């Protein structure tokens, strides 16, 4: 018999009783559906021990790595502390190291994190401003010895969080932050797979993180990045990405402009909406892994299109930015 710890309370799992059954027996409100390991609505996360493999059937590799499991399938062999995945408090304080503009409206915020904060680039964190506005931002750099994380913050005309960071936050300030969340990140399974990365606007943030991670881990397959925006002045990190192109044979980059565009500076852009430009390059995408980040409509359309072109649904990772999160 094992003990599970949930929200600082201990509960004993009876013999042959699943984690879900134990929690429901204690009248806790836990989302669930089929109780057969199919619908995945009962998913939870272990904070300490690795969940039994049998309780992870059907989950994606990234979820397994994060110790996610299906509570309706989980018979505990050892004690476990667990939490619901949607829970997010502000357990960390991140210290502001620098602020720098990447283009006319995107700010690079560099923060110092503590040892207890772990992440994969491409995951997001929730940050809380002085007036308690909460926004999610993706981490655009891989883990490093200096304990730095980088966020790309879009400054919208009446964006509360952005203007707070831009105008009021000073170097050395602390910003309350959640743990790193989400499963939109690189993993080293099947390194010969092609990677297709497509993003709009600041959807580049997670993709840039995933890209650097994949290159550092010496991904073997092709890596194709497509970044789109309305106007040329909205694109950013072009030089840094071009630099990576020149260093890595398997990596290519296409910048797309969907609005009007005259070729003034002899720079090369593709004309059109980014997902349409990207799709026109492939007649089929069997065996590719796809990451889609940014505008929800683009993400949704592209998700359907790449699925129809042969990508396995489990190989599609998405991060849709709803307007309040831009």
């Amino acid at each position, binding site marked *: 018999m094992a003990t599970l710890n949930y929200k600082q309370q201990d509960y004993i799992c009876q013999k042959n009783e699943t984690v879900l059954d134990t929690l429901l027996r204690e009248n806790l409100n836990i989302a669930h559906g*089929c109780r057969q390991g*199919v619908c995945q609505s009962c998913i939870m996360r272990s904070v300490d021990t690795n969940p039994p493999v049998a309780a992870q059937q*059907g989950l994606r590799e990234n979820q397994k790595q994060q110790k996610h499991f299906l509570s309706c399938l989980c018979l505990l062999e050892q004690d476990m502390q667990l939490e619901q995945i949607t829970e997010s408090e502000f357990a960390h304080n991140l210290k502001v190291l620098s602020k720098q503009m990447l283009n006319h409206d995107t700010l690079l915020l560099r923060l110092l994190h503590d040892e207890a904060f772990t992440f994969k680039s491409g995951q997001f964190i929730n940050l809380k401003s002085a007036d308690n506005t909460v926004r999610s931002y993706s981490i655009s750099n891989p883990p490093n010895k200096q304990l730095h994380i980088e966020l790309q913050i879009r400054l919208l005309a009446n964006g509360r969080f952005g203007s707070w960071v831009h105008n009021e936050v000073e170097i050395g300030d602390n910003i309350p932050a959640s743990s790193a969340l989400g499963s939109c990140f690189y993993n080293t399974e099947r390194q010969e797979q092609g990677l297709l990365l497509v993003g709009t606007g600041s959807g580049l943030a997670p993709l840039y993180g995933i890209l650097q991670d994949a290159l550092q881990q010496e991904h073997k397959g092709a890596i194709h990045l497509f970044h789109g925006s309305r106007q040329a002045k909205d694109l950013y990190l072009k030089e840094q990405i071009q630099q990576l192109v020149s260093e890595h044979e398997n990596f290519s980059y296409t910048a797309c402009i969907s609005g009007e565009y005259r070729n003034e500076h002899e720079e090369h852009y593709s004309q059109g909406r980014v997902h349409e430009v990207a799709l026109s390059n492939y007649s089929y995408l069997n065996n590719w892994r796809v990451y889609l980040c940014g505008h*929800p409509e683009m993400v949704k359309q592209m998700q*359907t299109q790449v699925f129809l072109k042969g990508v396995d*649904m489990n190989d599609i990772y998405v991060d849709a930015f709803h307007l309040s999160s831009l």
Partner: protein
Amino acid sequence: MSDSLYEKLGGEAAVNAAVNIFYRKVLQDETINHFFETTDMQKQMAKQKSFLTMAFGGPNSYTGEDMRKGHAHLVEKGLNDNHFNAVAEHLQSTLEELGVAAELVAEVMAIAESTRNDVLGK
């Protein structure tokens, strides 16, 4: 259990192989794809796995009543026998593409057929 239909088909691995093919067919079928419009494709995919698991005679706890409730909002939007037949055809051709033996296909189709009245709220 060792010779249940679900096991003969190949269990969870068979469902995983079938769901991508099946769901692609459904999404490309203009006569029914509007029923599957959703913001979260991954969740919809998990539901289609539930559907296939059930049709394959696998472990599930759905009752006829659940099927009735689960599709009632679709019946309100006009779900009828034609739509049901279309889904059944996609199920059948998915199995055939995967090389499933004819007598097993017939068993799956019989399970699907047995849910018709509940799914259509008749």
